[in-house]
């Protein structure tokens, strides 16, 4: 909402400075977004007088002018066709900067003739698009003075942001009322006077809604003015309209625009001679179409309120008029519309039509229903004043939807909600200044809400008005009482686990990314998603259309972007949400990481101490297990089985699970086809952990740890090597060895794996060390031998392999 300072002062009697007004506007909720003070911007540009204008010796179109600045006479070469002796012009001297293009003027030579300064056009001064010639100022303009005040440009333009509840502040009058309420002056109350009219309007009005429900447009009024003379509106009006960014068109149109901003009251003026019969208001009809004032053709939806005459729809009520009945230069008889439209229907209709207009903006934020008839008078008066003519009696269809709103208000509510210490008298004064009526004494009073404040419904709204105007700075901060003397840890187990997962991965040298929660539809499908219920109907772009079923596509794309910048070795992770459906219980938290190139935990890239090597499945499996350990899982209790989801290499992937029904993590090298489809260079190894699948830690009665039992007896270690088929998994071998004697075997450690050329085709050699921990006595050689035989038997039986000699 834009207006100028002088416009505001039409309605606000105040001594406050511009600064004070801006500060107050912001504090009371009419936030100042921008102030444009043309006089300040244009202060360097002064009035000058052209004493002579001679033809340039070497250029037909240029003139060499002698320009009097008030202090000296400058020579300026000018190409404008209207540059001539005897006119007063806007002068930009050397050193000044042209506001529209940032050009700094300096002495120059144009076709060999010295030129010092420039005479400016309206476009160069940012005043209009006019660039056919230089500006010509009135003959009485004082030479040497800034030119802006002479053209009335010394009126700062204020742009304020209006929250959706404050339809009343979409007119200058309402802004003035609010400032007066906040004690920054007094409101100059202006109530339009009734226009009696001297004849009956030849155009009638009627509300024609099916079943008689007038809710879309409960009141429609008109005044016919005959014999008007349309033309340009007066300078003061054009200046204000231009200042707020509107283009003056003709007096009749300018009046409607002006009142829209002046009183927040949208209007429409019809060329009465173009109307066919009476005007009525109804909903759109099937198959109807309309060309609106924006010269676009619209199909009229059947739930949109239209203004119609005998020819059909002639305007979208409260949104935009039609092209066929608008007023033109030559319009002689007009019919002025002032009506009230239902805000919700306007909002819906405006959206479905895709039309933004000042009228829609105001109606959907609610226009004062009590100001329909006064608004009609104000408009008619302005038409009579500016265009002459003779007004008819007013015609009115329906009734303004004005309802009494009385709120029972305990004065103590201000203290209870706002903690503001103030007096009853102050509260009442503030409310009265804002247009409320307060009756009653003591704590319980009744407050009547003015018709222009449809946003006020209850006690809290009243408190807001009081606090807003008295100032939130008057509320003293009060410490919130502590709930517990020593703060209890606020995080849930799940939240702690998420935090641990993140720190564990970062501690393993991985870098945390945050990627979009959306991905491309085809990628969602590749990673087990793509349900229609998870496809956005209004995505920001087609590559961000679906809720992600996995963090991998986002991380893989990020990895590729890094590779494209030359960072091939990368360990990236994210802890974030994934979506398997649209229900809350179908949203899961994943901790997902990938490693690419030589981004190993020991360090990234080649190093003189280590054999060069790229990351493999075992790097990411270790990452996954570390995260699970960080969340309190005992990794020795976890099963690791071969094979993972489709997006992994079938022979180089696995699952970490607590039984086949609870897969906590999957890991592997990404499938080459998946890499291809995402246009990502591999190989990349990755893991995914579903944090919700980690079972909750059991609550224990005590924090005490189980007793530590240490043996004085030395453990015994024995090595075994087996030749087995290549398909035999390490887990099978280790499980068999571990199970050979549950009491004495304390651990089995696989320390060597050989699959080289010295082995028979399809075989491998696996060596492991078994630790035996005697409990009560030292083991004899025979006992050790017996256990060794059991281990050999168990491994042979479960693997079909044989002990290596």
């Amino acid at each position, binding site marked *: 909402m834009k207006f100028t300072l002088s416009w505001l002062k039409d309605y606000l009697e105040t001594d406050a400075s511009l600064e004070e007004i801006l500060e107050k506007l912001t504090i009371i909720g009419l*936030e100042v977004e921008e102030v444009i003070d043309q006089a300040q911007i244009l202060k360097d540009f002064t009035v000058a007088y052209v004493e002579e204008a001679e033809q340039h010796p070497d250029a037909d179109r240029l003139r060499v002018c002698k320009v009097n600045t008030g202090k000296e006479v400058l020579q300026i070469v000018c190409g404008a066709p209207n540059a001539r002796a005897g006119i007063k012009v806007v002068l930009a001297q050397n050193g000044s900067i042209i506001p529209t293009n940032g050009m700094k003027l300096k002495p120059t030579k144009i076709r060999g003739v010295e030129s010092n300064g420039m005479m400016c056009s309206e476009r160069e001064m940012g005043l209009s698009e006019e660039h056919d010639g230089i500006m010509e100022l009135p003959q009485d303009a004082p030479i040497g003075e800034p030119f802006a005040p002479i053209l009335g440009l010394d009126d700062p333009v204020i742009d304020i942001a209006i929250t959706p509840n404050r339809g009343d502040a979409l007119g200058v009058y309402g802004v003035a009322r609010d400032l007066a309420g906040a004690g920054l002056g007094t409101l100059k109350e202006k109530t339009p006077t009734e226009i009696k009219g001297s004849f009956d309007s030849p155009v009638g009005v009627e509300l024609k809604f099916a079943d008689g429900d007038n809710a879309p447009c409960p009141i429609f009024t008109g005044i016919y003015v005959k014999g008007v003379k349309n033309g340009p509106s007066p300078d003061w009006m054009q200046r204000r309209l231009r200042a707020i960014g509107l283009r003056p068109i003709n007096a009749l149109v300018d009046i409607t625009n002006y009142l829209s901003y002046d009183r927040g009251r949208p209007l429409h003026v019809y060329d009465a001679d173009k109307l066919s019969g009476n005007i009525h208001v109804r909903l759109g009809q099937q198959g109807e179409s309309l060309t609106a004032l924006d010269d676009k053709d619209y199909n009229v939806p059947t739930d949109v309120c239209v203004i119609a005459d005998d020819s059909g729809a002639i305007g979208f009520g409260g949104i935009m008029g039609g092209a066929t009945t608008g007023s033109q230069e030559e319009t002689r008889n007009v019919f002025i519309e002032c009506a009230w439209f239902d805000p919700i229907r306007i909002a819906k209709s405006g959206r479905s039509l895709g039309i933004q207009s000042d009228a829609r903006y105001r109606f959907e934020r609610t226009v004062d229903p009590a100001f329909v008839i006064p608004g009609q008078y104000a408009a008619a008066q302005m038409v009579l004043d500016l265009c002459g003519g003779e007004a008819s009696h007013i015609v009115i269809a329906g009734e303004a939807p004005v309802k009494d709103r009385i709120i029972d208000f305990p004065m103590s509510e201000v203290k*209870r909600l706002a903690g503001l210490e103030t007096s009853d008298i102050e509260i009442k004064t503030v409310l009265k200044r804002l247009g409320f009526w307060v009756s009653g004494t003591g704590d319980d009073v009744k407050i009547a809400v003015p018709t222009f404040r449809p946003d006020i419904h209850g006690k809290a709204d009243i408190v807001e008005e009081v606090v807003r105007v008295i100032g939130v700075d008057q509320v003293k901060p009060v*410490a919130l009482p502590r709930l517990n003397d020593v703060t209890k840890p606020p995080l849930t187990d799940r939240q702690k686990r998420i935090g641990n997962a993140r720190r564990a991965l970062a501690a*393993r*040298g991985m870098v945390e990314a945050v990627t979009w929660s959306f991905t491309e539809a085809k990628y969602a499908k590749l990673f087990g998603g793509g349900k229609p219920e998870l496809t956005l*109907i209004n995505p920001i772009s087609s590559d961000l259309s679906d809720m992600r079923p996995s963090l991998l596509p986002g991380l893989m794309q990020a990895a590729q972007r890094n590779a494209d910048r030359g960072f091939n070795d990368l360990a990236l992770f994210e802890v974030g949400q994934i979506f398997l459906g649209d229900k809350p219980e179908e949203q899961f938290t994943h901790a997902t990481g990938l490693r690419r190139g030589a981004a190993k935990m020991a360090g990234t890239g080649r190093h003189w101490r280590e054999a060069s090597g790229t990351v493999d499945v075992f790097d990411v499996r270790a990452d996954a297990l570390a995260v699970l350990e960080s969340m309190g899982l005992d990794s020795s209790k976890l099963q690791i089985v071969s094979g993972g989801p489709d997006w992994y290499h079938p022979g180089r992937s696995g699952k970490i699970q607590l039984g086949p029904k609870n897969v906590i993590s999957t890991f592997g090298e990404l499938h080459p086809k998946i890499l291809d489809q995402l246009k990502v260079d591999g190989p990349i190894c990755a893991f995914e952990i579903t944090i919700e699948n980690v079972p909750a830690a059991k609550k224990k009665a005590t924090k005490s740890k189980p007793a530590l039992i240490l043996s004085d007896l030395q453990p015994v270690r024995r090595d075994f090597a087996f030749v087995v088929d290549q398909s035999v998994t390490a887990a099978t071998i280790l499980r068999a060895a571990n199970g050979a004697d549950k009491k004495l075997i304390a651990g089995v450690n696989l320390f060597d794996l050989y699959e080289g050329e010295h082995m028979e085709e399809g075989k491998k050699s696996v060596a492991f060390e078994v630790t035996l921990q005697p409990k009560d006595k030292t083991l004899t050689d025979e006992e050790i031998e017996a256990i060794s035989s059991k281990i050999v038997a168990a491994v042979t039986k479960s693997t079909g392999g044989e002990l290596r000699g």
Partner: protein
Amino acid sequence: MSELNSLEQEILANIAKADSEAALEDVRVAALGKKGKISEMMKTLGKMTPEERKEMGPALNGLKGRVGDALGARKDVLKEEALKARLLSETLDVTLPTRAGSMFEGRVHPIAQVTQELTAIFADMGFAVAEGPDIETDFYNFTALNFPPDHPARLEHDTFFLPEKEDGSQMVLRTHTSPVQIRTMTSQEPPIRVICPGRTYRCDSDQTHTPMFHQVEGLVIEEGAHMGHLKWVLEEFCKAFFEVDNIKMRFRASHFPFTEPSMEVDIGCQRVGNELRIGEGDDWLEILGCGMVHPNVLRNCDLDPDKYTGFAWGMGIDRLAMLKYGMPDLRAFFNGDKRWLDHYGFAPLDIPGLVGGLSS
């Protein structure tokens, strides 16, 4: 006797000549070994007359002792030399680079770090952390929060919609974390103190907006809670978060459907070059919106607005991070650029807390 003398000279010369422990051992064996020259001479003592023995015994023993001492001394020297030589041969170039270690290579994203910082502050004031789903119903995201249907305020939220269901309902991506406030109020009794950090979505993308961003909201519901408490909580938070002793704050009236009265809050700051200094200067910077929970919202959660009052606020986590740590561009947060993450991210041991400080 001169025989003994020349033997002694010979042996001592050999000892001095021995250049290794092995050579020295050869000298020892040749002198003192079973068949060594001195040992052989010692054997002859038995066959001597007592007088001869009286003379030769001490002479031989003296020789044996001196040779033994000389051997020992030479052995020490040779050992020392051997050790020196070994150590010299074992010299390493200790200037060869070592790895910093994963602990210093890994990074935590600024959003996670800042979330942890603000959790630590609010935890001290008794706030728990509440969470909810990103895909919400219209009820939780709008209706329960007192957004009238088709109200312009809904449009300002630039909502992402999911497809309409058979029953006409339509899920949305939450446009704020306020639905978590509703879920909290409908599932637990006052007193309530929670913060709700999380991802939020708006259909908006330009220089300063991303379609996904992070918000933290706070909610207090208890008898007697008022705007004075709200101001205190926010002032204390801002001081603690920006780690400054004083902060200028400006509360401006505003409007949100779910609070009444509503305010926007600015903090005092100063721009020095590209740097933003919080807590000094005369500029204002908007950082959050807040207000007293709207009575309709309380009623929607079956709480009696005449009994309970409460307040709520919301602010952008990404924005807080930018203000505190100086990232210039929001879009870079979600790009996964390793260079950015290395620079603006946090080491795994930088765990924010009120005891050790929020940031190093």
